[in-house]
């Protein structure tokens, strides 16, 4: 909670001020989508089978049931990539003739209440043709596997390939090759608020207002207007308070299209609130991957080449806007992580299966590639008989800017410094002593390290490099000081828990010399906010924050210009502080409120030299900046039961200039919890027929307060040169580092048994099975 503004000349940036979002939320006065009343309620009839032709649909007489046949003129969802041999596949908003996963929406039932609609759904009978589903990505790649889409033969929807020049020579000259095979099972992002949509028709304008749980309201407007073939101006999208997203709410939901279509047809209000079962089976999934990684090392244990084979199960359809490429292409581009290695070969495939569609989830592939790379490093350390810390010291990047084997440019960071910071704080020698003593008593403690880079705040060129038809990147902020002196920033980002209203207010406050509580940040309404891309990919503070700073500097310049006229002083002599413009070193001042009033009401005094009003726009599209961290987990593995208890968790992180340390730490804490869930607990399980065995929160288990260890955070600040606020993003780091740290710690604890745990989640069953297979803990 320390102020970090020393020497920066900043008063608000760097301070752990309380969030402006909180008073309403702690009082139960937040506005969430499901709070809205509606005339018509929708429930979706979802497929109970994973594959097959849809036969007869028999609904009770008089029931209002909408199927694909009714949606004439509604286009399918067609996400596009223009690279990597991508095969465009269509997703009809309601299953059209065939179903491809359990949970796919076949029909929408409309009734006067949710309960009535649900009763009708239960009475509808659907016949399905026989078909054999394929659930596992490796099975889907086999010769003769069932085809999910005719457009993607062999079920490969995209294929990324990289091979650096000179790879073979370096590879063949290696001293040692070390290999690791990682299996990451499937996860669901599980925001506590499931999805919801509410659309209402306005007879006077003919417009629809869609309120929904989304991370990108403007793109939802564009996408839904495209699919329905209506002008965007006929649709207003509102993202009110959104109860967490973590990536799951950044894709276009077919259900939202249906709700808007119904509101237009019925000329009324229509609502759908997803239940938890639907969320777990039919929203978006993630992290279902196999990665085989091999590393070539020279005699000094220096990594000289990496070879990887990435198989990503993308489910039944491609998600919009990121497409099925989001996981495999992220994995391919960022596999080398924080290590200096210039030779790289990779094959990354996205594989269609009869499972729920994959989309972004906090960290996107990087929790898995970090796990894989960090397992490789620990295995290599063992092969060279050196310490895990030592092998990292020998390989971490320390010269900047650094261009990776895949062409990414890493800006200045502190990979080695955060490693050393963590090593010192955790006291490795003391731990090794304790570990030895515990082993003598039959207790198995382990320590695991994860060092990683986190690419954040990247603009449109990064998305263009993936060949995306839609390249989200820039952000716009419109900043207004109104005639009463209050400040309003309208932003295209769409925060949903990240505290952006507070952090942007801190940035503005420093520029304009006002207090953050006088600043309102308006977001999540396409009628009020400028077009923007929303909140995802650890981008908002960097990109929207940068746009905010640009706009604030312009407003500041104008305030100073007006003040210089009013105070008859040179602009260079005027400072903005404590709500006033002051001639430095004098008591001559005028309040910001007065300046603002003049800007609107006394424009005749400016002799045409100052434009009326006090509104400025900032747009920012940065190249991207890399945060970094070292995570350390200390675990206690019960070899009798396979249970893992995390004793301690330590993070040394660097995300550039921190705008609000309290909020930054909260992001790290939350990320670690999700990473621990990923490492130990959370798994969406399909049976062979494509049915889901984990359709409630007792079977799919996010961590509770009991599973969270105490977290100790250490900070460094390497101000970013690639971000005008000097801040880097950090929303995903916790999630990225935790699986690797925890799994490395488990493996360290189990060293005496000679087992390797390379599968997540590392459930007690998996740990016991590995120990049994090793024959040492039957």
């Amino acid at each position, binding site marked *: 909670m320390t102020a970090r503004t020393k020497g920066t000349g900043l008063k608000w940036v760097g301070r752990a001020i*309380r*969030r402006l*979002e*909180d*008073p309403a*939320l*702690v*009082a*139960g*006065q*937040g506005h*969430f989508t*499901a*709070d809205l*009343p509606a005339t018509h309620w929708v429930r979706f009839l979802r497929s109970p089978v994973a594959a097959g032709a849809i036969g007869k649909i028999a609904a009770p007489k008089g029931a209002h049931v909408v199927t694909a046949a009714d949606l004439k003129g509604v286009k399918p969802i067609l996400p596009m990539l223009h690279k990597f041999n991508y095969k465009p596949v269509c997703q009809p908003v309601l299953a059209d003739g065939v179903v491809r996963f359990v949970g796919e929406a076949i029909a929408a039932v409309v009734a006067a209440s949710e*309960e009535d609609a649900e*009763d009708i759904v239960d009475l509808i009978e659907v016949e399905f043709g026989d078909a054999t589903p394929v659930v596992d990505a490796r099975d889907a790649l086999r010769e003769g596997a069932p085809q999910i889409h005719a457009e993607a033969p062999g079920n490969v929807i995209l294929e990324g390939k990289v091979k650096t020049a000179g790879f073979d020579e370096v590879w063949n000259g290696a001293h040692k090759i070390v290999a690791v095979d990682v299996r990451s099972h499937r996860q669901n992002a*599980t*925001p*506590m*608020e*499931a999805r919801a949509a509410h659309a209402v028709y306005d007879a006077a304008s003919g417009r629809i207002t869609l309120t929904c749980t989304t991370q990108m309201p403007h793109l939802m407007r564009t996408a839904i207007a495209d699919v329905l073939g209506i002008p965007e101006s006929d649709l207003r999208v509102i993202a009110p*308070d*959104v*109860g*967490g997203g*973590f990536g799951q709410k950044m894709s276009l939901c077919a259900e939202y299209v249906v709700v808007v279509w119904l509101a237009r047809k019925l000329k009324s209000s229509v609502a759908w609130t997803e*239940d*938890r079962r639907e969320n777990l089976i039919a929203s978006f999934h993630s992290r279902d991957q196999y990665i085989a990684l091999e590393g070539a090392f020279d005699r000094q244990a220096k990594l000289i080449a990496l070879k990887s084979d990435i198989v990503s199960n993308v489910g039944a359809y491609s998600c919009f806007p990121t497409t099925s490429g989001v996981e495999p292409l992220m994995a391919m581009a960022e596999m080398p992580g924080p290590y200096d290695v210039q030779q790289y070969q990779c094959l990354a495939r996205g594989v269609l299966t009869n499972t729920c569609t994959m989309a972004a989830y906090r960290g996107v592939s990087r929790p898995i590639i970090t796990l894989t790379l960090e397992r490789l490093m620990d295995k290599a350390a063992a092969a060279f008989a050196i310490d895990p810390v030592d092998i990292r010291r020998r390989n971490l990047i320390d010269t900047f800017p650094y261009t990776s084997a895949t062409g990414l440019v890493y800006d200045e960071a502190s990979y080695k410094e955060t490693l050393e910071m963590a090593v010192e704080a955790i006291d490795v020698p003391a731990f090794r002593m304790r570990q030895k003593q515990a082993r003598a008593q039959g207790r198995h403690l382990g320590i695991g390290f994860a060092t990683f880079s986190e690419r954040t705040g990247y603009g449109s060129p990064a998305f263009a490099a993936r060949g995306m038809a839609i390249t989200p990147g820039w952000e716009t902020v419109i900043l207004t000081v109104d005639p009463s002196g209050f400040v309003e920033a309208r932003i295209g980002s769409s925060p*949903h*828990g*990240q*505290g952006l209203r507070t952090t942007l207010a801190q940035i503005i406050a420093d520029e304009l010399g006002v207090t953050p509580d006088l600043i309102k940040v308006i977001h999540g309404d396409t009628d009020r906010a400028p077009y923007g891309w929303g909140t995802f990919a650890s981008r908002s503070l960097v990109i929207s924050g940068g746009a905010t700073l640009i706009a604030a500097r312009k407003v500041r310049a104008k305030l100073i210009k007006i003040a210089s006229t009013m105070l008859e002083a040179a602009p260079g002599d005027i400072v903005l502080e404590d709500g006033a413009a002051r001639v430095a070193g004098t008591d001559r001042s005028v309040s910001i409120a007065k300046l603002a009033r003049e800007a609107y009401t006394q424009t005749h005094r400016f002799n045409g030299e100052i434009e009326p009003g006090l509104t400025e726009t900032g747009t920012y599209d940065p190249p991207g900046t890399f945060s970094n961290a070292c995570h350390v987990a200390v675990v206690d593995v019960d070899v009798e039961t396979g249970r893992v208890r995390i004793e301690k968790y330590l993070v040394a992180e660097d995300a550039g200039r921190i705008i609000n340390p*309290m*909020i930054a*730490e*909260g992001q*790290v*804490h*939350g*990320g*670690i*919890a*999700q990473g621990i869930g990923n490492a130990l607990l959370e798994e969406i399980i399909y049976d062979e027929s494509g049915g889901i065995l984990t359709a*409630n*929160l*007792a079977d799919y288990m*996010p*961590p*509770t*307060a*009991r*599973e*969270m260890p*105490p*977290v100790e955070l250490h900070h460094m600040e390497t101000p970013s040169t690639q971000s005008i606020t000097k801040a880097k993003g950090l929303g995903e780091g*916790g999630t990225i580092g935790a699986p690797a740290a925890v799994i490395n710690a488990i493996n360290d604890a189990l060293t005496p048994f000679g087992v390797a745990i390379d599968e997540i989640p590392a459930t007690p069953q998996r740990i016991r099975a590995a120990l049994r297979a090793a024959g040492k803990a039957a």
Partner: protein
Amino acid sequence: MSDKSTITLSINSHDHAIAVEPRRTLADAIREDCGQTGTHIGCEHGICGACTVIVDGEPVRSCLMFAVQADGKKIRTVEGLANGDTLHPMQQAFMDNHGLQCGFCTPGFLMLAVGVLEREPDISDDDLLDVLSSNLCRCTGYQNIIKAVRAAAKEMRGK
């Protein structure tokens, strides 16, 4: 399913006379029939605890209780925590300690913690952790929720 019972829900000392189907959950009745949308529904399985309210002094999952079962009982929800403009110490502590991010699970955590601490003000840290592990939060990683509840417990004991 359309036979409705007439019941009275006393929410934060206001009586709401409503007619509900027997299958109506207390959570739905509070939100939809009584318009108190501060109580959130996260799973409808009794697992996440977002819908926790206090009924006759006990924290309960309002998604696992039928509205008719709460007829005539004293129900407290997040909207009734503050005393006018003065926040309850638990609300203040959640703000002071950054115990919330998206705020969706927050009303449930507030009511859970208040309900337990009113009955058991001297609860041990370890027992408190057990209590808090009965609700789910996906944003905070719980550290700051635990910190907030401990701070509020101290404050509540002092009064």
